[in-house]
């Protein structure tokens, strides 16, 4: 007698960004391969993950990544939706699901949202900025599209380790015997350079607000201006009062602890002589 049920293979991959591990579960082996390729360098050999997401793949017609993203919280659950995906996440249980087609962009968006929500409660944030490590210290280069994030990343000297050319991952961590410090981590979230960041981290030494100009110069930025510009460049998805509060406090705390400068630069390699 033939079996009444078909056993479905379940595949998993743990993607660890900024030390926060997310397990993605799927029944589609091709999708799993795509995740391994997309997040290579950030795939963890650890089996333990802080959060678990089941991916429910839909037909390819289900896609409109240009639509606005909606992130709302109700009764302890987060609901995320864009034209190309729907997702739900319950922080208390650490579990969630994603309904999307088999493409890398939708899950990338969900991961960015989830990490931004996780970081907010922990005093960190995702920032529209390139970042790189030089001489053991991390430098962030923030700016809107066209400000020079890709350019400064492309000009980085061989001794600089690129963490990202698009989205920086900043956490506030305890330092034994000292005060807390901000640490920048590499991310797989890429911009025009389309190159994954290195999966490493370093304490943040400075935030540079990018501007292109006729000559290279660095000018200090006052705390209030720094706070305003930092908030303007934070990735912020949720129209949620508590999240707004955390993001605001994180921005204010960051600019009090980390020097912020305006970096006006000519797009050639000499700009890196002033950094690090």
């Amino acid at each position, binding site marked *: 007698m033939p079996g009444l049920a078909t056993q479905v293979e379940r595949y998993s991959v743990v993607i660890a960004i900024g030390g926060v591990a997310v397990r993605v579960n799927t029944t589609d082996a091709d999708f799993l391969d795509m995740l391994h390729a997309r997040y290579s360098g950030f795939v963890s050999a650890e089996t333990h993950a802080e959060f678990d997401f089941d991916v429910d793949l839909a037909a390819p017609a289900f896609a409109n990544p240009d639509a606005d993203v909606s992130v709302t919280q109700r009764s302890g659950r987060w609901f995320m939706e864009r034209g190309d995906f729907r997702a739900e996440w319950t922080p208390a249980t650490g579990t969630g699901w994603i309904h999307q087609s088999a493409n890398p962009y939708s899950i990338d968006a969900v991961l960015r949202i989830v990490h931004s929500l996780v970081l907010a409660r922990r005093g960190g944030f995702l920032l529209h900025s390139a970042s790189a490590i030089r001489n053991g210290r991390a430098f962030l280069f923030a700016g809107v599209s066209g400000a020079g994030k890709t350019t400064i990343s492309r000009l980085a000297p061989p001794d600089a380790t690129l963490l990202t050319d698009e989205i920086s991952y900043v956490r506030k961590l305890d330092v034994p015997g000292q005060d807390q410090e901000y640490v920048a981590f590499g991310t797989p979230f890429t911009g025009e350079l389309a190159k994954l960041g290195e999966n490493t981290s370093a304490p943040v030494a400075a935030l540079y607000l990018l501007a292109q100009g006729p000559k290279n110069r660095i000018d200090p930025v*006052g*705390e*209030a201006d*720094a*706070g*305003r510009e930092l*908030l303007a460049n934070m990735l*912020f998805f949720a*129209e*949620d*009062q*508590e999240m*707004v*509060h955390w*993001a*605001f*406090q994180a921005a*204010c705390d960051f*600019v*009090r*602890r980390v020097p912020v400068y305006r970096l006006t630069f000519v797009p050639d390699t000499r700009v890196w002589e002033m950094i690090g």
Partner: protein
Amino acid sequence: MSKKLYVARSPRIAARKLGQEMLVMSGQGSTLFTLNPTATVIWQAADGATSLDEIVERRICPEFEVKPEEALRDAEALAEDLAKHGILVISEEPISEQPISEQSIAKPDAPVQEPQQR
């Protein structure tokens, strides 16, 4: 205006003094405001129990050297403007409790602390 007005900081906002400027962020719409010096004084003094004319008399007039009547007129207009943006709550009675039942996102004391030394 003959009636006394009482003002209280809205529980829906987060605020912090950075440098010499008071930044206020509304939880609704993620809107960021920068308060001018007069608005900062009113916002800091807006405890719900002190009337606006007392704030003007004790804080605004001595600090900004303006006449009480003129200062009160300006303060009322400013308070109404801040209330429109959800930064202050205005009442003709003392405001003894949080006027909004939703969970507060503003810490009563922490937001207005002076910057700590780095």
